[in-house]
């Protein structure tokens, strides 16, 4: 039984700021006590580097660190723990894929298929991959609501040049869930690989990479109730085997010789040079256990319930324009008519409401929805309908004069 009050009590940020309405979980989520305790426990009781098997503490922490690959693999339905690479976050995961694609999977004349709705972290690495390989970037046509259309997508393959598809699972601005399984099926029929940015999806949806058959999935711990500084790259094992590390150093090599020859560790350790974010891995494990204790189906259902409720309430207001009516993953994007997004957000901030404004790192999106800046309210399991009601009451009474007064 989903009990939001019980959940709220698990989050110190909520206990410490009982009146704060935090609606920026798309940027980073709050962390439950069990995650924080795990990180602190590492520093207070288990502070040792990993893979120094000569003493007990290192051995114990190494085992949890290594076992967490299985926890993550099971959480996203990966076929084996060796498909799970620890990175510094979704950005470093996506760069690892794109840099390797530029070197190994793409050639001059190939096409990287993506969208203008994308987050900078899933476009800029592909610009560089195109530069490195001589491939070109192609954008899938979207309608003015930035809704993905499978037919338009399939048409992009007509010249048989698409070799990589780079798309999000959930759009970070619009909150739409992409039909990833169909996207992958079409791409594979045309011999293209699929890299999915799961940063906004994995925290909210039940994700099964085996069922989806995606080639790569990137996500960050800090948006899914875990610590910052740790992310995951899932890749199909044979693809990871073909790829090179981005960084070289300690921990990722087995041997090296004077002549420059390096014998790397096996996949996935070969990608993980340097001391990793150990406490992040341990905390991520707790975050996954916490989410699973609630159940990802329940998490997803509650996200849909909150999104639907919020959008329905906003649409009853005359002074609001909502841009993503079909959003299902706790992301609501809107503007107050005649008020610049940042002016409104600054006023909300004075009333203890945290939202994000701007283009949300998707700096090409305005070509699609023809709006430069929006307010994004993004929610997670600890948000409530009461908070939405309070926020909607504030929005109803917001005027440009009140916004300006908040800086006077």
């Amino acid at each position, binding site marked *: 039984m989903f009990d939001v009050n019980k959940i709220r009590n698990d989050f110190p940020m909520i206990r410490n700021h009982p009146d704060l309405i935090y609606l920026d979980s798309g940027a980073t989520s709050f962390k439950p006590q069990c995650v924080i305790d795990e990180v602190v426990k590492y520093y207070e009781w288990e502070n040792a580097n990993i893979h120094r098997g000569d003493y007990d503490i290192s051995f114990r922490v190494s085992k949890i660190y290594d076992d967490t690959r299985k926890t993550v693999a099971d959480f996203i339905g990966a076929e084996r723990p060796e498909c799970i690479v620890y990175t510094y976050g979704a950005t470093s995961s996506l760069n690892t894929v794109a840099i390797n694609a530029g070197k190994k999977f793409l050639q001059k004349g190939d096409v990287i298929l993506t969208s203008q709705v994308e987050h900078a972290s899933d476009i800029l690495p592909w610009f560089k991959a195109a530069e490195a390989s001589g491939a070109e970037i192609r954008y899938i046509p979207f309608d003015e609501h930035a809704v993905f259309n499978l037919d338009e997508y399939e048409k992009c393959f007509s010249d048989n040049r698409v070799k990589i598809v780079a798309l999000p699972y959930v759009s970070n601005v619009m909150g739409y869930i992409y039909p990833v399984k169909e996207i992958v099926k079409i791409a594979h029929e045309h011999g293209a690989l699929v890299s999915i940015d799961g940063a906004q999806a994995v925290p909210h949806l039940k994700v099964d990479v085996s069922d989806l058959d995606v080639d790569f999935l990137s996500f960050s711990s800090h948006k899914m109730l875990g610590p910052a500084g740790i992310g995951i790259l899932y890749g199909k094992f044979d693809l990871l085997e073909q790829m090179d590390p981005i960084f070289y150093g300690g921990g990722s090599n087995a041997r090296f010789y004077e002549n420059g020859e390096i014998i790397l560790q096996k996949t996935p350790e070969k990608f993980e040079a340097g001391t990793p974010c150990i406490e992040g891995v341990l905390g991520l494990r707790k975050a996954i256990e916490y989410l699973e204790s609630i159940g990802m189906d329940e998490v997803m259902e509650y996200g849909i319930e909150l999104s639907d409720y919020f959008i329905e309430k906003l649409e009853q207001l005359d002074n609001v324009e909502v841009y993503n009516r079909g959003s299902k993953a706790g992301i609501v994007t809107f503007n107050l008519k005649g008020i*610049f*997004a*940042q*002016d409104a957000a*600054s006023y909300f*901030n004075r009333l203890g409401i945290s939202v994000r*404004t*701007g*283009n949300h790192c998707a700096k090409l999106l305005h070509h699609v929805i023809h709006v*430069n*800046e929006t307010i994004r309210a993004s929610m997670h399991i600890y948000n409530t309908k009461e908070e939405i009601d309070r926020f909607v009451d504030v929005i109803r009474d917001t005027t*440009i*004069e009140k*916004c*300006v*007064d*908040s*800086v*006077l």
Partner: protein
Amino acid sequence: MMDKELKREIMLDHYNHPNNKQTVEDDSYRSVHNASESCIDDITVYMKASEDHIEDVKFDGVGCTICTASTDIMCDLVTGKSFEEAKAIIQEYYNMVDDKPFDEDALEEANAFDTLYQQANRIKCGTIGIHAIEELINEFEQ
């Protein structure tokens, strides 16, 4: 000190009806583009100057009330001024938003921003256009 009503009026007037907001496609103007990563403000300032003074300043782009109004007011303040005078005005403005002592008389309508220093997250809005104006003055001086 200005009262709150007057400040609000000045800000909204320069936001809704800026005197200097227009795109300039005249080669005798130089331009500087200033955009922020963390917010949407994205401003281009155009300046025409003689050897030692500013003849005209215009701007265009996308900005919030504070960004638009502060840039518009500063364009008014520095037009017709020598580079030295303009830089002194800008310095007084920076002093104001840094909560340091400043010369109210030098800032005229820009006094509407005299409490901006209290809101760290908006100081950038109130300086993005001003930085561009300053940069243009420095370019002309070289």
